[in-house]
C-alpha cells in the first residue's frame, strides 16, 4: 500500500497542470477574499471631515461588539446592597425583547459590565449579565412583578416575586463590578425589524421603537448616593425618552437594547468566515484537479497500466484518495491561514470592525477549510471513478457542493429552502467555517445568508463525510465489477 | 487539381527541440512515395503541417499547389490518416464517416461505398471505441477515401495490421497509385515499404537525407560489387586485380569484387581460363540501403545522449 501511495504521488506531482491548478486554489481564495473589503468604500466623515474613530460599536467584556443603549434611572451604590422594585408588565404591543427592570452596572459608559433582573415583552422574567449570559425565571402573566437584585461581595443574586413577600431566586452570578457601581431602573426597546426574504432579494422594514412602563415601591438597601438621575446610556438625549416621578412611582420610557451584536454578511462587522468567501473558488480549483487526477486514468487507458502494476483495484482507489486528500488538505489549510490575516488587515484598514474569535476557534476554521477541501476532493475522486468522465464529474461535485452554498448564502432562496439545502447537501460542510454565535436571548435572523448554518461544524462536516463515504463505497464496487 | 504534395524548407521548433530543420521534398502523381526515417525524424510533424494542424515557423507546404487551409471541401483534395484513434469512441464507425461526409457536402451513399471498399462491413454499426487497432486503421482509410481525393497521405498505416491486412494495404496503395493518384506513406520500418513504394524520401533529424527511386537507392547501396565462388582463388584474384578491380577475400572459396560489373568479371575469367562455380551481382536489400543512409543520423542522435 505504501508503494502504491508513493506511485500515485509521483503520478500527481509529475503533471505540471495539476500542481499549478492546486496551487491556484491559494491565490484564488486570498484574492476573492480581498475583493469583498476592497470594493467596500464608505465615508463616515462628519460635517468637518472628522475621522470615523467613534463609529465602531462599543465592546463589552471579552471585546465582543455590543449594543448597549437604554434609559437608565440610577444612583451610585457603594459596597454591598440591593434594589427592589415593582415593575408593571410591558404593554402587549411591546417588542418581544423590550426590557424593563433593575440593573447594577460598572458605569454609564456603553459596554461596561452589568447584571440585571428584567421583564421582557414576550419572553417573561430573566436575569442577564455581561450581554451574552441569560437565565430565564418563572413565567407568570400577572400585571406586575417585584424584581430584586442584590450584591454581596462579587456575588449578585436576582430574585422575582409576585406579591413582594415570597421570593424566588432566578440565579446567582459571580461578577466583579468594583466598589462603586451605578444602580437603578432601566427600560430598553430594540429596533423593530421585519425581514422578508424571497427569491433573489431581502427586504427589510423597521425602525426605532419605544417602550414605557412604571416602577413603584422602589426600595434600596445599603450605601446609596442622594438623588435618582436619568441617563440615556449609549444614545443621545431625546425628547421621547426619559423618566418622570410622582409619589414614588417612576414612569420610564426607553429605546435601545443591551445585547451582543450578531454578525450579518454585508454589515460593518466582519467574522473570520467572511474573510473566507473565496474558499468556494479555491474549492472549485481543487475539485477540477481531483477530477482530472482520476478521470485521466480512464481516458487513454492508463488505468490498465495502473492495474497491471497493482491489480488490487480497491487499493488503487484508496491510494488515490489518500494522495489527493492530503494534498487538498494542505492546500486548504495554507489558503485559509494566509487569507484570514491578509483579509482582516484590509478590513481593519477599511474601517470595519472584527468579531473576536478565540485561537482555538480560528484553528478549527483553518483546519476545517483543509478538511472541506480534502473530503470534497475524495468525493470528486469517487464520483470520477463512477462516471469516468471529467466534465460530468466536475459538474456533479460543483453543483453538489458549491451551488447549494451559493443559493443559501447569496439570499437567492428563502430561509426554509436555504436551511434545507445546507442540511442535506454536501454544502453543509461549510458550517466548518462558522464562528458566528447564536444567542437564544437575542432577536436576530440567524439565517444561512448571515453565516448561521443549520448544523454545527461537526454535524455539517459529517454530512459531507457521509456523501464521500457512500460515493467511495459505490466507486469500490464499480471498480471491482466493471472491466477496466 | 494536380496530384502533388510540395514541401519546401519547413522549419519548426517545439521549445528547445528542433522538429523540422528545412524539410523539402515533392510527392508526384501515379506512384507510392515512402516517407521513412527513425522515430522522431519529423515525419508526423511534416504531415501535420501539410494538413494545417500545426503551423511551421518558416517554409511552406502545398497540396496541389494550394495551402491546405485554403481548400474548400479539403477531403476531396487530400485523404489522410494521421492517428487512427482520433475519433469519439462512443460514436459508431458509420456515424463517424457520416459526419465527415456531411462536412464535405457528400451524400450518405458515399459512406456506404467506402465501408464496402475497406471491408468494414457489419462492424460499421458498432462503436468505434471498441475497434482493434487494425479495424481502426481500416476506418481511417475509409475516412481518407471519402472524398475520392487525388492525393493520399497515410501515417504508419501498417501499424497494428495482421498479415492479411498488410497484404490488403499494399495492394490498395499500389492500386491507388496506378489510378494516377499521389500516395505518401510514412513508416519507420523500411521492410514494410519494400514491395510497395516506387519512390522514397528518407528523413532524419528533421530533414531529407535521400530522395530517390527505390531502384536508385538499392543500386547506390549495392555499388558494383560482385560475389565470386571459385576453387582457384589465387589465379582469379590475379586476373581481376590486373583489370583494376578491388578484391577482398570472404572465405575459402568466395571473394568479393568491387569496381567491375559482373559481365566483365565473367569475360575476364573465361579469357584467363580460371574455373568458377558461381558469379553473382550483389544486390543490397532496401533495409540495408536504409540502414546505411540513416546510420549517420542515428549515430549522431546516440552521441547526443
Amino acid at each position, binding site marked *: 500500500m505504501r508503494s502504491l501511495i508513493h506511485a500515485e504521488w509521483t503520478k500527481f506531482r509529475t503533471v505540471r497542470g495539476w500542481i499549478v491548478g492546486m496551487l491556484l486554489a491559494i491565490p484564488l481564495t486570498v484574492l476573492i477574499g480581498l475583493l469583498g473589503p476592497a470594493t467596500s468604500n464608505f465615508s463616515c466623515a462628519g460635517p468637518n471631515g472628522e475621522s470615523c474613530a467613534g463609529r465602531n460599536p462599543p465592546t463589552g467584556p471579552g471585546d465582543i461588539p455590543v449594543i448597549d443603549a437604554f434609559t437608565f434611572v440610577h444612583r451610585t451604590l457603594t459596597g454591598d446592597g440591593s434594589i427592589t422594585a415593582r415593575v408593571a408588565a410591558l404593554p402587549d404591543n411591546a417588542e418581544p425583547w423590550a426590557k424593563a427592570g433593575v440593573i447594577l452596572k460598572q458605569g454609564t459608559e456603553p459596554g461596561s459590565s452589568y447584571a440585571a433582573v428584567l421583564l421582557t415583552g414576550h419572553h417573561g422574567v430573566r436575569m442577564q449579565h455581561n450581554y451574552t449570559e441569560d437565565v430565564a425565571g418563572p413565567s407568570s402573566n400577572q400585571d406586575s412583578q417585584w424584581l430584586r437584585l442584590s450584591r454581596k461581595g462579587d456575588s449578585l443574586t436576582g430574585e422575582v416575586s409576585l406579591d413582594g413577600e415570597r421570593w424566588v431566586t432566578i440565579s446567582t452570578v459571580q461578577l466583579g463590578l468594583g466598589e462603586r457601581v451605578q444602580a437603578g431602573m432601566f427600560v430598553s426597546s430594540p429596533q423593530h425589524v421585519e425581514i422578508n426574504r424571497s*427569491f433573489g432579494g431581502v427586504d427589510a422594514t423597521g425602525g426605532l421603537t419605544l417602550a414605557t412602563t412604571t416602577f413603584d415601591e422602589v426600595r434600596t438597601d445599603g450605601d446609596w448616593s442622594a438623588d435618582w438621575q436619568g441617563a440615556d446610556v449609549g444614545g443621545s438625549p431625546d425628547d421621547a425618552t426619559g423618566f418622570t416621578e410622582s409619589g414614588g412611582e417612576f414612569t420610564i420610557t426607553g429605546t435601545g437594547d443591551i445585547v451582543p451584536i450578531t454578525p450579518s454578511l454585508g454589515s460593518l462587522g466582519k467574522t473570520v468566515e467572511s474573510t473566507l468567501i473565496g474558499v468556494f473558488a479555491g474549492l472549485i480549483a481543487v475539485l477540477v484537479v481531483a477530477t482530472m487526477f482520476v478521470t485521466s486514468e480512464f481516458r487513454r487507458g492508463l488505468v490498465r497500466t495502473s492495474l497491471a502494476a497493482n491489480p488490487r483495484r480497491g487499493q488503487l482507489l484508496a491510494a488515490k484518495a489518500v494522495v489527493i486528500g492530503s494534498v487538498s488538505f494542505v492546500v486548504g489549510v495554507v489558503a485559509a491561514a494566509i487569507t484570514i490575516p491578509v483579509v482582516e488587515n484590509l478590513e481593519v484598514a477599511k474601517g470595519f470592525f472584527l468579531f473576536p474569535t478565540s485561537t482555538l476557534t480560528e484553528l478549527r476554521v483553518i483546519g476545517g477549510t483543509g478538511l472541506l477541501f480534502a473530503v470534497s476532493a475524495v468525493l470528486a475522486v469517487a464520483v470520477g471513478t463512477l462516471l469516468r468522465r471529467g466534465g460530468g464529474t466536475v459538474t456533479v461535485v460543483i453543483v453538489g457542493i458549491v451551488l447549494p452554498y451559493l443559493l443559501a448564502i447569496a439570499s437567492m432562496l428563502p430561509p426554509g429552502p436555504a436551511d434545507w439545502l445546507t442540511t442535506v447537501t454536501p454544502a453543509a460542510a461549510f458550517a466548518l467555517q462558522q464562528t458566528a454565535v447564536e444567542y437564544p436571548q437575542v432577536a436576530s435572523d440567524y439565517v444561512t445568508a448571515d453565516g448561521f448554518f443549520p448544523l454545527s461544524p461537526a454535524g455539517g462536516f459529517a454530512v459531507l463525510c457521509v456523501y464521500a463515504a457512500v460515493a467511495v463505497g459505490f466507486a469500490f464496487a464499480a471498480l471491482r465489477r466493471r472491466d477496466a | 487539381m494536380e496530384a502533388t504534395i510540395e514541401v519546401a524548407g519547413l522549419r519548426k521548433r517545439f521549445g528547445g527541440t528542433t522538429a523540422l530543420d528545412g524539410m523539402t521534398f515533392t510527392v508526384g502523381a501515379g506512384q507510392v512515395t515512402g516517407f521513412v526515417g527513425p522515430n522522431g525524424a519529423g515525419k508526423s510533424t511534416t504531415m501535420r503541417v501539410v494538413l494545417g494542424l500545426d503551423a511551421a515557423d518558416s517554409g511552406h507546404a502545398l497540396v496541389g499547389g494550394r495551402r491546405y487551409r485554403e481548400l474548400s471541401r479539403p477531403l476531396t483534395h487530400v485523404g489522410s490518416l494521421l492517428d487512427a484513434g482520433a475519433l469519439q469512441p462512443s460514436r459508431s464507425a458509420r456515424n463517424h464517416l457520416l459526419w465527415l461526409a456531411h462536412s464535405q457536402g457528400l451524400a450518405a451513399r458515399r459512406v456506404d461505398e467506402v465501408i464496402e471498399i475497406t471491408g468494414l462491413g457489419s462492424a460499421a454499426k458498432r462503436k468505434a471505441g471498441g475497434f482493434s487497432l487494425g479495424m481502426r486503421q481500416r476506418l481511417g482509410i475509409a475516412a481518407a477515401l471519402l472524398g475520392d481525393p487525388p492525393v493520399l497521405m497515410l501515417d504508419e498505416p501498417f501499424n497494428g495490421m495482421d498479415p492479411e491486412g498488410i497484404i490488403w494495404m499494399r495492394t490498395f496503395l499500389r492500386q491507388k497509385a496506378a489510378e494516377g493518384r499521389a500516395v505518401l506513406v510514412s513508416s519507420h520500418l523500411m521492410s514494410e515499404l519494400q514491395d510497395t513504394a516506387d519512390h522514397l524520401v528518407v528523413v532524419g533529424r528533421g530533414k531529407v537525407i535521400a530522395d530517390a527511386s527505390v531502384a536508385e537507392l538499392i543500386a547506390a547501396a549495392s555499388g558494383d560489387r560482385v560475389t565470386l565462388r571459385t576453387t582457384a582463388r589465387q589465379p582469379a584474384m590475379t586476373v581481376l586485380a590486373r583489370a583494376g578491380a578491388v578484391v577482398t577475400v570472404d572465405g575459402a572459396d568466395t571473394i568479393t569484387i568491387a569496381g567491375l560489373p559482373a559481365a566483365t568479371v565473367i569475360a575476364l575469367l573465361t579469357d584467363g581460363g580460371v574455373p568458377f562455380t558461381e558469379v553473382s551481382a550483389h544486390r543490397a536489400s532496401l533495409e540495408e540501403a536504409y540502414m546505411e543512409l540513416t546510420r549517420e543520423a542515428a549515430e549522431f542522435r546516440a552521441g547526443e545522449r
Partner: protein
Amino acid sequence: MIGVSALHAEWTKVRTVPGTIWLLLGTVALTVLLGALATNAMAPGGDPAESALTGVALGQAIVVILAVAMVSGEYATGMIHTSLIAVPKRLDMLAAKGIVVSALVLVAGTVAVLGSIVVGLLALPDLTLTGPVLRASVGSVLYLALIGLLSLGLAVVVRDAAAAIGVVLGLLYLTPIVTTLVSDPDWHDRLRRLSPMTAGLAVQSTVDVVAQPVGPWEGLGVLAGWAAAALLAGAAVLRLRDA
C-alpha cells in the same frame, strides 16, 4: 458552401453521440424540477415569475456540460485532428459549433421554460401571462443559449472538460457569492451589473424591475458581451495554436 457543410457535419456529430439527448433531457428535467420546488417554497411578496424560473440556475449547469463536451470531447480523444482536417477553416468549425449548440439549447430551453411556467401557473395564483412574464420566459431561454456560447468559447481556450467547466461555473458563481460581502452599494450594483449570471438573470424579474441594478434586456446584453468575448478568445486561440 463549406459553411453549410461544416454545420451539417457538426449537427451529425452532436446527433450521433449518445450523451446529447440525455443532456438535453437533463436540462429540461432539472430546470422544471427546481422551479417546481421553488414555487412551492415561495415566500409571499416574492416575484412569481422569478420563482417559477429559478430552475434555470440549475439547468444551466447541464447546458455548460453540453457545450463544453462539444469541444473538450474532441480534444480528449484526438478527434479534433480529424475535424480540422475535414474543416481546415477553423473559424468555420467554431461558428458551426456555436450555431448547433445555440439551436439545441434554444429548443431544450424553450421546453424547460414552458414546463416551469406551466408548473408556476398551476401553483401560483399571482402568476399570470403578462408582458413582463413573457419577457422573463423568452429571456430565460436566450440566457441559457448565451451560457452555452460562453461555455463553448472558454472550452476552446481551456480544452480540458473538467477545467473548462470549473472555469465557467466559477465565473458564474463568483459574483453572487462575492456581492453578499460588498457593503458599498455602488460596488454592489456595479458587480451585479457586470457579472454574467446576475446581470443575465435580471431578465427574469417582473416585480419592481426599476429597482434592479440593470435592466432586463440590458442585463442579457451584458451576458451576450461575455459570450462574445469568450468566443473571440476561443477563435484567437484556435487560429493561433497548433491543434
